[in-house]
């Protein structure tokens, strides 16, 4: 099971791309967490879990974009269609949960973003992954076999 998610699934170029992506994600996470800590100290704008989820989501953006456009995200021997559907479902589900929370008035209470904010952030990241992957897929198809 663990082997399925192992870095061994990537070739050496993909591993190098992912290393660069991890570096950017780590730096972004540090900046995002500091920003969250500073702004939350000034005014209480979200619950801690939502703030952490937002920081993690922001740091995932450079990681995912570098990996996707560097062709180092999808496992080569796994159905891409299945991965597209999974990402779209996860994105839609998270956004739906956030929408339900917003409709019930539970997303923001007294100016403080509640736990639904975590779903909103994660949903947006999954949708971003879907869009970026679709763009990359289009670019590769247009490039043809021997670019």
């Amino acid at each position, binding site marked *: 099971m663990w082997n399925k998610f192992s870095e061994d699934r990537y*070739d*050496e*170029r*993909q591993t190098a791309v992912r290393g660069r992506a991890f570096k950017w994600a780590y730096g972004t996470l540090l900046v995002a967490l500091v920003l969250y800590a500073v702004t939350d100290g000034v005014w209480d704008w979200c619950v801690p879990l939502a703030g952490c989820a937002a920081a993690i989501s922001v740091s995932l953006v450079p990681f995912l974009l570098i990996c996707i456009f560097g*062709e180092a995200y999808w496992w080569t021997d796994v159905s891409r269609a299945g991965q597209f559907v999974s990402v779209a479902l996860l994105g839609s589900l998270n956004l739906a949960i956030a929408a339900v929370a917003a409709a019930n008035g539970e997303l923001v209470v007294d100016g403080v973003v509640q736990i639904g904010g975590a779903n909103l952030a994660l949903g947006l990241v999954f949708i971003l992954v879907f869009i970026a992957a679709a763009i990359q897929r289009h670019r590769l198809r247009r490039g043809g*076999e021997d*670019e």
Partner: protein
Amino acid sequence: MKNLRMKAARAALDLSQQQLADAVGVTRQTINAIERGDYNPTIKLCLAICRALGRTLDELFWEE
């Protein structure tokens, strides 16, 4: 710098990028990046490509 010698050696064997990639255990995009000069492969991958194409390291990767 583009690696035209590798591309020519692959074409001489009538291999696609995908077929060469499968033979050496990498993705097609990695072969494409090497041929475009966007990625410097490790010696391990260079040797695997040389074996797959029946050429020497000098013939494919040595720059004068």
